[in-house]
C-alpha cells in the first residue's frame, strides 16, 4: 500500500516524511525520526512512557496515528531542553525546571518512565500551576513507574511548580 507524504511539526521543526496510514506517532518518532526519548512501554495507553504533547495536551503517542498528527504542534522530551539535546556537554546546559527537579529530588531511577513522566508533569503544571499533592498524584494517573514508588516524583513536581510559579 502506498505511503502518504505528511509534514509533522515536532519541537518547532517541520519534518516531511512518508508514512503508511497505520503508523502510530510513536513508531514515526522512534523508528523513522530516531527521536527515541519518547519510549514505548505497553502499546495500549496504560503506562504513559510514550507521552508527548499534541497542541500542548498530553497524549499517548502509541494510540495516536501519525497521519492525524499533521497540522498539530508536537512536543517531545527532546523539545523541553533543545540546547541540552544538541549539546554534548549536558552538565553546563540549562534544562527545563521540571527536569532539574527530577534530577535533584531523586525522581529518576531506571529512567524509562522519566520522559513520559516529565511530559505529563509539564501538562499538569500548565493546567494547574500550583498543584497540591493529590492533584499531582492525579496528574500522574496515566504514568506508571516501577522503580521509585512515585513519592520522589511527586516531590520533584512540587519543587518544579514552586520554581516555575512561586507561591511566596
Amino acid at each position: 500500500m502506498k505511503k502518504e507524504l505528511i509534514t509533522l511539526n515536532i519541537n518547532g521543526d517541520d519534518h516531511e516524511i512518508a508514512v503508511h496510514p497505520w503508523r502510530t506517532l510513536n513508531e514515526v518518532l522512534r523508528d523513522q525520526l530516531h527521536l527515541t526519548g519518547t519510549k514505548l512501554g505497553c502499546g495500549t495507553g496504560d503506562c504513559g512512557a510514550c507521552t508527548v504533547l499534541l497542541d500542548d495536551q498530553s497524549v499517548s503517542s502509541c494510540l495516536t496515528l501519525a497521519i492525524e498528527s499533521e497540522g498539530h504542534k508536537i512536543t517531545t522530551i527532546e523539545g523541553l531542553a533543545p540546547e541540552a539535546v544538541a549539546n554534548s556537554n549536558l552538565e553546563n546546559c540549562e534544562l527545563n525546571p521540571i527536569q532539574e527537579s527530577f534530577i535533584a529530588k531523586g525522581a529518576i531511577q531506571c529512567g524509562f518512565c522519566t520522559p513520559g513522566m516529565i511530559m505529563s508533569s509539564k501538562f499538569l503544571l500548565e493546567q494547574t500551576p500550583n498543584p497540591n499533592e493529590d492533584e499531582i498524584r492525579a496528574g500522574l494517573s496515566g504514568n506508571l513507574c516501577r522503580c521509585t514508588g512515585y513519592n520522589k516524583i511527586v516531590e520533584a513536581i512540587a519543587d518544579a511548580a514552586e520554581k516555575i510559579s512561586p507561591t511566596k
Partner: protein
Amino acid sequence: MTLPQFTFLAPTSLTEACALLEKHKGKIKIKAGGTDMIVRLSHRAVKPDYLMSLKKIPNLDGISYTPGEGLTIGALALLREVDLSPLVLEQAQMLARAAHATATVQIRNMGTVMGNVCNASPSADNIPTLVAMNARIVASCGVKEREIPIDEFFLGPGRSALQANEIATAIKVPTLAPQSGVSYQKISPRSKVDIAAVNIGAMITLNDDGECQVARISMGAVGPTPLRARQAETFLLGKKITDETMAEAGRLAAEDAAPISDVRASREYRKLMVEVLTTRALKEAVGFAKN
C-alpha cells in the same frame, strides 16, 4: 505490535462520512479519539479494510446547553472537556464525575464520551449516568437524523442500535426535573485508576412529600449491556425515601444484576457490590434532590 494495514478515510462532512459507511459496509470501522480502536486494531480484535476518522467533520465537537431542553454533548467532545466543562458541572455534574473516572489523563485528552458510549462496553464509565438521566443518542445517516433513547441503544457487548450507515453525532441529556438528584458510583480492583468492576448510575426525583416520583438506576459491568434495576425502581416509586427503602432497593438491584466472573471480579462479589453501590448512589442522589 504494529497495526494491521488499512486505508485511512478522513471525510470532511457527515454526508460524505455516511456515504463511505454505506459504501464499505462490513469492511469499515469508525474512530474518534481512537483510544479504544487503536488498541483493538493492535490486538487484531478488529481488522477493517478502512478506518474512518470523524475528526475532520465540522460541528461534531462542543458542549452546549439549551434551557428547557438540556445539554448536548458533541460526538467529538473529549472526556477531558466534559470533565471540566462549566456547563456540565452546572447542569449534570455526575457526567463530569463519570468522565473524570474514565481511564487516565492522556486517555481523557484523546478519547471522547461518545466513543466510550458507542463502544458499548458493559463496564464503560460514562454509560450508567447517561442511562440514569434518560439521555438520547442522536444518529445521522447523512440525510436525516433520529434520536435513540439510551435504553434502546445497547444491544450487546460492543453492539449498538446504530445502523451500518449511521453515525452518532451527539448525546442529548434532558434537564433535570426539580427536586432531582443523580449519582455515579464505581468500584474497581485497583483503587484509583482502573476499569470498573461494577458501576452504578442513579437518578431520583422526589415530590414535595419526599416520596419517590421517578427512579432510574443503571448497572454497569453486571450484564451484556448496561442493565436497569427495574425491581428496585418499581419498589421505590411512591415510597418515602429512608435508609431502609434505599437498602431494600440495593438488595433488589442485586437480584436484577446478572454478572459473570472474569479477570476483574467474581459474580458473587459483583452482586454484592451492586447492592452496596446502589444504596450509596441512592443516598447521594437523594441528598442532591433534597437540596
